[in-house]
């Protein structure tokens, strides 16, 4: 996927804003700074423990704006429906979108609906674009220094396991609920606190490992993670052990990972932990100047290994 984006999309549409490769494009219009983003949602199953495709399509876009230091304001909504989809299901999803928009404090202001022949899409696909107003613009990966702590706002992998276990009908996974949530409230509290936040991302596709690899890619620093401090719920751990999946690569939809200046670490951690979505926040590692462009993991066994970028999807193993 990364290669496809680089070799085709980035090449053909190359411009200064796109080149920043952020979760949202930051646009200067007059004296105002706006954040603009888009995402398409094709999750299977469309309902999973902790959410559904409707709430996911709102919160996913809200979070992409939020991690860019923007206050999410307006969303567009594009729905592609497979012919024959039960009307009740559609109503349930639309109500879920409405509810999610209310909770996240955003308005759906424009939209489009198309119905396609049976078999041309899988039940329902949703695209949302989002517009937000930038209130924090002090992110700077260039300012990242050795020793800066890496913080995550909560346990990882819950969204991926919730969806996977529902899709595959795995009994042991039924206890795991997706972490899906709008992060704009939590992030605003953090960014309005007197602290220097240098990097912020939501570890969605490809999980924590991929997000951190993107952060260090081509940089003069690396990141050292302590496996024992990475929060993982027992349900997710059990599912991963059973299926041979690495939780570091599993998607979250309600977590944020930050790099802050060392002196502000405890203050930021306090702010995050006071929010209901951040109670289990933890410092999971630090910036290191030794391993340029790489993420290293101090394993719970006392060993050490490289955490690479995920390529392809993880497949459950045989035995």
């Amino acid at each position, binding site marked *: 996927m990364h290669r496809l984006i680089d070799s085709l999309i980035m090449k053909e549409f190359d411009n200064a804003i796109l080149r920043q490769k952020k979760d949202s494009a930051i646009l200067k219009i007059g004296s105002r700074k706006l954040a603009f983003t888009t995402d398409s949602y094709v999750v299977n199953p469309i309902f999973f423990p902790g959410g559904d495709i409707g709430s996911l399509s709102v919160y996913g876009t809200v979070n992409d704006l939020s991690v860019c230091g923007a206050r999410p304001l307006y969303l567009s909504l594009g729905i592609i429906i497979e012919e024959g989809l039960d009307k009740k299901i559609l109503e349930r999803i639309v109500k879920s979108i409405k509810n999610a928009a209310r909770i996240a404090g955003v308005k759906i202001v424009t939209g489009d609906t198309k119905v396609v022949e049976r078999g041309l899409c899988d039940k329902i696909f949703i695209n949302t674009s989002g517009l937000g107003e930038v209130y924090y613009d002090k992110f700077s990966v260039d300012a990242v220094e050795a020793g800066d702590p890496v913080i995550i706002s909560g346990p990882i992998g819950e969204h991926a396991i919730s969806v996977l276990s529902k899709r595959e009908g795995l009994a042991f996974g039924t206890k795991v609920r997706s972490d899906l949530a709008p992060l704009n409230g939590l992030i605003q509290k953090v960014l309005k606190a007197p602290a220097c936040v240098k990097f912020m991302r939501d570890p969605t596709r490809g999980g924590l490992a991929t997000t951190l690899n993107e952060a260090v890619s081509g940089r003069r620093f690396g990141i050292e993670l302590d496996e024992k401090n990475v929060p993982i719920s027992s349900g997710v751990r059990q599912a991963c052990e059973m299926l041979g999946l690495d939780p570091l690569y599993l998607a979250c939809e309600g977590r944020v990972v930050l790099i802050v200046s060392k002196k502000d670490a405890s203050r930021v951690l306090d702010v995050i932990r006071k929010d209901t979505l951040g109670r289990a926040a933890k410092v999971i590692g630090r910036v290191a100047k030794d391993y340029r462009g790489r993420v290293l993991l101090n394993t719970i066994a006392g*060993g050490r290994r490289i955490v690479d970028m995920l390529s392809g999807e993880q497949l*459950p193993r045989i035995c």
Partner: protein
Amino acid sequence: MKYVDEYRDSKLIARQAREIREAVDPGHTYSFMEVCGTHTMNIFRFGIRELLPANIRLISGPGCPVCVTPNEFIDKAIALAGIKNIIIATFGDMLKVPGSYSSLEKERGAGASVKIVYSSIDALDLAKRNPEKDVVFLGIGFETTAPTVAQSILMAKRAGVKNYSVLCGHKTMPEALSVLTEAPKLDIDGFLLPGHVSAIIGVKPYRFLAARGKRCVVAGFEPLDIMQAISMLIKQKRPGIEIQYTRIIKRGGNVLARKSIKKVFEEKDSIWRGIGKIRKSGLVIKSKFAEFDAEKKFRVQIPGARDHAGCICGDVIKGVKTPLECKLFRKTCAPEHPVGACMVSSEGTCSAYYKYG
């Protein structure tokens, strides 16, 4: 997590590391082969090589079921997937394995019906739920998975299920180890024997290894298991077979599981990717159960299998070379677009080197 965390305790592991350092003869280089793919994966995942002295060399063995499955098997599965009304049911990591000309994943993209299941029993359920389709389960793996596949066939027979069959590619481990000890380029001092295979077959089938002067320890899969097993290998005075994984393994193995293997399968020569034909190292379905044998039921014709130029998976499986010596590694061959099977399986040596190297 109970019964897992105890075996990942860094203090206990550090103590084992200390014992190993104290016990090694600094003038000798130890070469130990970890036979099982799960061993390989966990050695990388937990960074175990870092905890060992430099004169202990760990060589990855042939114990990844997906990796040793030859192209011909994949080609047959793909041919079956092309038949109308057949659903291929498979373990997830078979999906991306390239056969001679395609992979099941590509065929699925082109419209073939390929479903991931977690056991042969799930595949049998799939057949029961889809009476108008024919479900073919891809039976691969060693003595660990063979009993469950045998059970699925016995259950299908008992229940009168007519639309379930198995494409059988099962292999047995001891014969492959015998071939490896005869390989001239491999100078192995000892083996970390596979925990789960041994849970079924017990330790008797490995006796020849000790007779050939190889130290053997049947090892569990958690980091503490692996460290303790290495420590036991080093301290072993005379070549013999010890069990580290005592919480699971009985010396006699699992009689019931072996009985079900014997009931349904019989031994046959088998082709291992990278190693070639090994005498009596495969299992085929007995003619008594022919109606559940996909090969006999559908009789697909496949063009001659071909190997991929430049891929050294064969030597990697034998432990003669490491993935780093392969010209394709990280270039043409990566988990996203694998050339050899060792890159596909999460337990494959190339995949472990790629991911954790």
